[in-house]
């Protein structure tokens, strides 16, 4: 059946497919390039000391800034890390060290399902659970929602980095007469530390940009933080509200806020990359 023309057709087909995959790569990269260029070009002209240090001005009038939104984002990151990181690390340790049983497998499965849960659903959940109970929007509700989003990410990365710690290290420590919990904390977790830090940073990068769950938990505000029980602002929320306003200055401020947010998120991601390059263990996939 082999013939010269048949082979030529097959060769042409091969070339065509390879060309198509290159087209696919270009199609995938164009949006990223465009987003980065637009955010930098349109955002940089707005950035000024005033923009970064003052709260929003009167709606409809140019001026004012996003300082309260930046403050709010950092408060939310801090609060949700306070809740999500310790629980996530402990749960990850459980799954890696003691989780080789039906309970462990169930928890791992549920954690994977929770990781893919739409963030707006988690927002609604916290609205019913916390906002309705307290009768108000608050940073506490926002932090609970964001910590639920963090949790599965921290669990997964902790589990995978604890798992790759060689068992000879554990055995050596146990042979020295250390208790199991001492071995886990002082030897295993210490060895897996950079992996765990990477996971926490990835989780922070993820929640820093979350918008949907904040709509129904912290609401947004024009003012700086006053109390844990009053609505606050956050960068992603501010970007959304600015984009919806029918004013040019608001759109420009939106791009400026986007530049600040994307800088935070991408810095975290690049730092994660640098960190994981430094250690020998394989990178953990989210």
């Amino acid at each position, binding site marked *: 059946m082999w013939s010269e023309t048949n082979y030529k057709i*097959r060769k042409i*087909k*091969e070339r065509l*497919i*390879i060309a198509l995959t290159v*087209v*696919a*790569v270009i*199609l*995938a*990269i164009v*949006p*990223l390039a*465009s*987003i980065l260029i637009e*955010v930098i070009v349109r955002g940089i002209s707005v950035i000024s000391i005033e923009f970064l240090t003052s709260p929003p001005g009167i709606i409809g009038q140019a001026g004012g800034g996003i300082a309260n939104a930046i403050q709010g984002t950092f408060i939310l990151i801090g609060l949700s890390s306070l809740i999500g990181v*310790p*629980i996530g690390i*402990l*749960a990850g340790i*459980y799954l890696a060290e003691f989780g080789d049983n039906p309970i*462990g497998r*169930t*928890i791992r499965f*549920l*954690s994977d*399902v*929770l990781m*893919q*849960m*739409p963030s*707006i*659903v*988690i927002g*609604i959940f916290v*609205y*019913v659970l916390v906002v309705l109970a307290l009768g108000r929007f608050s940073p506490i509700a926002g932090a609970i929602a964001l910590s639920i989003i963090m*949790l599965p990410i921290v*669990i997964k990365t902790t589990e995978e980095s604890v798992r790759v710690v060689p068992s000879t290290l554990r055995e050596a420590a146990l042979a020295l007469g250390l*208790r*199991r*919990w001492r071995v*886990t904390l002082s030897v295993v977790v210490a060895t897996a530390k950079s992996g765990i830090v990477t996971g926490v940073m990835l989780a922070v*990068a*993820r929640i*820093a*940009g979350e*918008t949907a769950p904040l*709509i129904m938990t912290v609401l947004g505000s024009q003012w700086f933080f006053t109390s844990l029980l009053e609505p606050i602002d956050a960068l*992603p929320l501010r*970007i*959304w509200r600015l*984009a919806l306003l029918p004013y040019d200055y608001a*759109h420009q401020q939106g*791009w400026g806020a*986007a530049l600040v947010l*994307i800088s935070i*998120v991408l810095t975290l*991601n690049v730092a994660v990359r640098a960190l994981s390059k430094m250690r020998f263990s394989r990178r953990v*996939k989210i």
Partner: protein
Amino acid sequence: MEDSKEHQAGYPTFDAPNLLRKPKLIPKGDTIFLGLTVAAALSVVIIMALLITKIYEGAAPVFSRFGFKFLTGLEWNPVEGMEAYGALPYLLGTLTTSAIALIVGVPISLGVAIFLAEIAPSSIRTPLSYVIELLAAVPSVIYGLWGVFVFRFWVRDLIEKPLSTYFGFIPLFAGTPYGLSILSGGLILAIMIIPTVSAVCREVLLSVPDTQRDAAYSLGATRWEAIRIGVLSYARAGIVGAIILGLGRAVGETMAVTMVIGNAVGPSALPTSLLKAGQTMASLIANEFNEADPVSLHPSALIGVGFILLISALIINVAAQLLIYRVRAKGVVE
């Protein structure tokens, strides 16, 4: 260090009965530590259980008032005395935008994955896969901002105008090109699922053993034939898992879609044409949540839409996880 005392007391005397005493072998510290980790791990179970019950609780008023009609109704009216809530247009809107996202996004993701795993020279493999993974890190509200002020005009001028000029007589493409449409929503979702789907597909392809490729080549296959026969067919289950994962992301994605879909409400939100404004379940919730009057049924109706979204996401993600677990157990991924 309560246990260091026995070691300091010089040479240990081997006291056999001592070793057999059970309480010594299960020291307190270990129990406490194990308890802490178990409690932390169980929090996931508690969250999942509460998530489902609490959202159902919040939606109960509207479910008991409208029953099955909530799922099949078209009207959406929060005005007091005329309240009517039907979620069908938004359910269909989510289905349509997700379908567009998969139809457009999956072939591109597969192309990217094949290029990265099989074709690209190793010098550009790592940087390129890194760049594509960065796309996944961009917050969805920034996709939305870019969508409203940049991408919208690309869709309007490059896709919608030609479509409506040449195919406007087909109902699917009827309407004025405006750029804020179901098509824009679907396309921005396609862009957003590409990093997820292509990263998982690439992983699946890389885990296909080289013997598969070698066997195909030894039969005289061209490169593409080796990929198709040796690699893609072998990796099929994993690729399906990746696609379902992408579907899960598309169904739940909120901000970017909200900003470009045009936000129609009621019967006009039915996705009868790709070029008209629509609404997904997630975008409806994001848009109306802060405007809902707490004493009306409106918040409950939005939570009800959230419940439908939760159940859809749950089904999709459980299916994806089970598929990926099965593939992993077979040794195809990792």
